[in-house]
């Protein structure tokens, strides 16, 4: 009886720890080699054959095709520079410059990776569409209501993810966070 009870206890503890560990690792995207600059995080190795088991499991669970290293790199931001989760009911300003790349795009997705529905059908900007200041820097406002300049409509959803993709860029596996990779700042300006 004691042996049976002990065995059941070990199995139960093993199952709970093992499965919850897997669940949280995939939910948080716990692959190795993360490159975090400000609010932005990329996993350059995910786009190579060296992708670790965590990255592979995460790709399979989400169901996307990762950006290959020869193509570009994908940065995602789920919260602003202060760590506040991005809220579609607030005005969020993405301002500054990007690392050098032939093209870049910025896109707004809901937490499931779907484009956020909005009345004007705009889901992002490309580097060519953007209106820039005299010094070449840009400022995008993600907000529920129309804004002057580069307005990225959020559709008023509660939580969203901003994805900045750099195409044909030197930023990759060997890049270290630092001054050579300037990323735009993400600031929550005002919430109703």
């Amino acid at each position, binding site marked *: 009886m004691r042996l049976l009870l*002990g065995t059941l*206890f*070990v*199995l*139960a*503890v*093993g*199952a*709970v*720890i*093992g*499965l919850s*560990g*897997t669940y949280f*690792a995939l939910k948080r995207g716990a692959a190795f080699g993360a490159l975090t600059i400000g609010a932005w995080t990329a996993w350059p190795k*995910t*786009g*190579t*054959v060296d*992708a670790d*088991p*965590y990255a*592979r*499991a995460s*790709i*399979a*669970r*989400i*169901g*996307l*095709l*990762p*950006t*290959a*290293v*020869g*193509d570009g790199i994908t940065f995602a931001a789920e919260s602003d520079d202060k760590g506040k989760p991005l809220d579609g009911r607030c005005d969020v300003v993405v301002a500054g410059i990007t690392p050098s790349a*032939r*093209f870049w*795009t910025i*896109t707004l*997705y809901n937490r*499931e*990776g*779907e*484009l*956020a*529905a*909005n009345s004007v059908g705009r*889901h*992002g900007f*490309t*580097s*060519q*569409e953007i209106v820039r200041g005299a010094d070449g820097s840009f400022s995008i406002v993600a907000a529920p209501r129309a804004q002057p300049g580069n307005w990225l409509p959020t*559709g008023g959803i509660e939580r969203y993810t901003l*994805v900045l*993709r750099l*195409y*044909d860029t030197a930023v990759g596996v060997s890049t270290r966070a630092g001054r050579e990779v300037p990323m735009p700042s993400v600031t929550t300006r005002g919430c109703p």
Partner: protein
Amino acid sequence: MIRWALLLLGGCLLGGVVHIATIIMLPRTATRDAYARLEPITPVNTVTPLPPPTSDAAAMPYMDPAFASAICRYDLSQGPMKLSVPVRTAYTSVSFYTNRDVAYYAINDRAAGRRVIELDLMTIEQHNQMPEEEDVTAADRLIVESPSLTGLIAIRAMAPEPGLMPQAQSAVAAAQCRRSDDVKGSR
């Protein structure tokens, strides 16, 4: 007391094993990964343009709406493949994925350096079996070795402005992927 502490320790160790095993097993058993999503809508060894992602429907999550894309789902068991992609818009890229969605190669229009990106795709064994002289005359041919027999080629053309999207879509629709034997036979 000590007995329960030991059992707890054993449970934690087992938990570690379960965790690692599930992480490694997951890509093999995933039924909603990109390959499984694309398999029913993409015929094998031909280029299928994907509908542009909208807020209502998308072939895959996290697709870039600034790009027109097409997929060639390949099967190399019958022999090597040839791929050609016309370069018409600002930026065109071709990325190769195994049947487990691992990106093993990618090239863009500037790296290819022509008006058309032309590639031969084959397994490592098929590359080794290639006649020597053919390898020499084909020095300017780009040969990509696939680590798996089946996989996906993602062909993507950028529309820097929404007005250029039709042009990008026609470029990816004009891409061709087919068995090398068929290409030779048609000449």
